[in-house]
């Protein structure tokens, strides 16, 4: 049985960035993912904001990882063809109390070396965002806070790891494991694997995996649900900048922003729950989000809703990341990474590689592999439909071509389920939600997914 240097449990945002980092450093990487595709858990639903870290606790590991992750994303995105929708963000104070709190927000940004922030008065706010509702008293502009495609980067990272020889197993839940002499023996639902070091990136199951293999966990996951509403693309012309509320102790609050895919998004809610898998939307919460969005941007009144979704964030008893190495057990846990994880993932991976080196391991780094550029899904950049020979448009709302669908079902990491196909192409994610394309997609994906779109029929 081959022996991997590291087994990474979980192919969420953090796991994918981890696999890339360790593969680039020359380690032999094994990725074990319970789901049928990457980003199957907490990472599949977020607000897609590339954070500067301006509001992170100064001096915290989270703040360091967010800023390192931001910098590395900007450095590699050109080669990988990953988009940035340059929006900037405004922390908007709508009340006197919020206005009083802006000084603190600005001080924190400067303490975090985000020095390009500046205050906007009501007239400047209006000039920048003419559709914004009445009553914005003052704002803090954070120019480098941007929006990205929240899924393609992680596929790109995992493709890089794979190109460097990583073994990536989907549908591989780690059921048990134990230390044997110099390595871990892991029993997975796809067979036994061996690795020198285990890195637990299991997200919503981080504490479960720790307890299952170590017998204990330093933290307890307390899933926090965030619901979102996506408005029709017609709304995108109403807003340029990400609109953030003045944060409170518990949450960053409800955000209004464009998406890289040309929509406008409002969310998230922040709701504690026990269940780690069930990310259900709730009509009352969605209506409240829509009402809040209309307050902030009155022109959204009557704007059709394209999609609604809910995500679960792996919160713990404490606010910060729960990253710890256990040298005597050759184990590193990466837990409690919540909404900033999408930005911080590359930074977290670098930090964890440092911890790994301190466990006494080292490898010879390799060059970044030549990977084909990622298919662009962002609306502000050329999409596949604009290049002839695409075989026709399958999903009309999102203009997804047959060639894009076929490419997402082929290659080194083909979509493992319908959610994976949607995240790779945007098919069925538009305003009609599959009224026109679902049946065609059932045909194009026949025999591909363990959970097929079409069910077997009986002769009538």
């Amino acid at each position: 049985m081959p022996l991997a240097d590291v087994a990474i449990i979980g192919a969420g945002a953090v796991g994918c960035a981890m696999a890339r980092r360790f593969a680039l450093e020359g380690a032999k990487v094994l990725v074990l993912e319970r789901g049928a595709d990457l980003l199957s858990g907490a990472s599949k639903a977020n607000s897609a904001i590339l954070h500067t870290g301006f509001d992170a606790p100064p001096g915290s590991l989270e703040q360091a990882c967010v800023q390192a992750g931001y910098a590395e994303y900007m450095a590699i995105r050109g080669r990988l063809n990953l988009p940035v929708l340059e929006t900037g963000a405004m922390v908007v104070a709508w009340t006197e109390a919020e206005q009083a709190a802006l000084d603190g927000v600005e001080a924190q940004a400067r303490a975090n070396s985000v020095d390009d922030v500046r205050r906007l008065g009501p007239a400047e706010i209006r000039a920048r965002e003419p559709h914004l509702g009445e009553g914005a008293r003052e704002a803090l502009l954070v120019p480098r806070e941007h929006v990205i495609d929240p899924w393609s980067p992680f596929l790109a990272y995992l493709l890089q790891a794979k190109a460097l020889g990583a073994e990536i197993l989907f549908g591989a839940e780690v059921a048990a494991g134990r230390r044997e002499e110099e390595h871990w023996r892991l029993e997975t639902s796809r067979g036994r694997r061996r690795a020198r070091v285990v890195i637990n990136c299991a997200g919503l199951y981080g504490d479960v995996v720790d307890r299952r293999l170590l017998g204990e966990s330093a933290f307890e996951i307390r899933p926090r649900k965030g619901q979102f509403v996506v408005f029709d693309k017609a709304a995108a012309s109403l807003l340029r900048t990400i609109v953030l509320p003045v944060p409170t102790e518990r949450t960053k609050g409800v955000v209004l922003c464009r998406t890289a895919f040309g929509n406008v998004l409002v969310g998230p809610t922040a709701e504690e729950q026990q269940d780690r898998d069930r990310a259900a939307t709730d009509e009352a919460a969605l209506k409240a989000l829509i009402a809040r969005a209309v307050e902030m941007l009155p022109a959204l009144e009557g704007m059709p809703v394209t999609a609604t979704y809910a995500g679960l964030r792996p919160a713990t008893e404490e606010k910060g990341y729960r990253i710890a190495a256990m040298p005597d057990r050759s184990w590193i846990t990466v837990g409690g990474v919540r909404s900033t994880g999408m930005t911080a993932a590359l930074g977290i991976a670098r930090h964890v590689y440092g911890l790994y080196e301190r466990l006494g391991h080292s490898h010879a780094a390799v060059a970044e592999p030549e990977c084909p550029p990622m298919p662009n899904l962002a609306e502000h950049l050329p999409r596949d439909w604009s290049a002839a020979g695409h075989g026709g448009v399958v999903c009309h709302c999102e203009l997804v071509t047959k060639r894009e669908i076929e490419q997402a079902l082929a290659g080194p990491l083909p979509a493992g389920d319908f959610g994976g196909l949607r995240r790779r192409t945007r098919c069925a994610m538009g305003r009609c939600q599959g009224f026109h394309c679902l049946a065609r997609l059932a045909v194009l994906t026949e025999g591909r997914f363990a959970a097929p779109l079409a069910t077997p029929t009986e002769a009538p």
Partner: protein
Amino acid sequence: MSGAAVDVEVEALVVGAGPAGLGLATRLKARGVASVLVVDREADAGGNPRHCGHPPFGLREFGRVLTGPAYARRLAERAVRAGVALRLATNVVAIERAGEALVVTTAGDDGVRRIAARRLALATGVRETPRAARLVSGERPLGVLTTGALQAFVYLHGKAPFRYPLVVGTELVALSSLLTCRRIGAAPVAMVEERAGPQCFPPFMALPRLVGVPLHYGARVVDIAGSPRVRRATLAHADGSSSEIACDGVLFTGRFTPEASLARAAGLTMDLARGRPVLDAFGRSSDPRIFAACVLDRSVETAGWCWSRGRAIADHLAADLAGRLPPP
């Protein structure tokens, strides 16, 4: 989008080759409009009737009873005979103004093309309101779809999206879905209607009884659960009670809404309540060069009604091209 050169100039460009668009285009030719081009994003002309495997279609237009697909074919043939040009499998991606003319950018397998037109008629039809836009609570498993998608599964591809669906709504299209389910051996577990009574001609509600589908009036879906496929739905009843129904799909029927995304993208003034552009008595929008054959002014209409609506708009549009329509 301004890269490609204009490759064709027409008097009238019609977007949508459903009954309204084809009726409109055919009539424009009859009214003497020199060049009429219809674009549609589907590979076959005909619109929604293409996947309505059931009669009756065509009484008004052809004086006989046809199935949806046969009706769709005939409408397209008649348009082509009248001299209408068709570009299928072609998506409209932008509508711009260039002086007097409108320039419409399209995308197809042959690349991006630009069409200049003196007048534009939007006949983009309707679709059902999907689950997301209804804000229905719950998870997002496989098996949640609309009747239009079900019809495409069954009539276009011979496939089944579920075996035991819950049917939401009692418009006529909900009843047609019961028949469509029979074609694939699917057995709906129940039909639910939020209101106290049916949303179609009440005697039609004999159909669910005949095929043994329990009906729940005054009930709404308050949860959908399952992963990866629907496992159950929870209903809230008018008396305050709730019940769970085991099913492997949830079919959202009806609540048709105009497919008005192009009107929005073109910046036309919208009628928010009706979800379509504001139109004058001649079907002109806030840009008087853009007409719309909106078919949802009452409730959802039959194909025949859409067809005659298209013809009525064509008369106004032809008059406008001839300079005989009152200014807006």
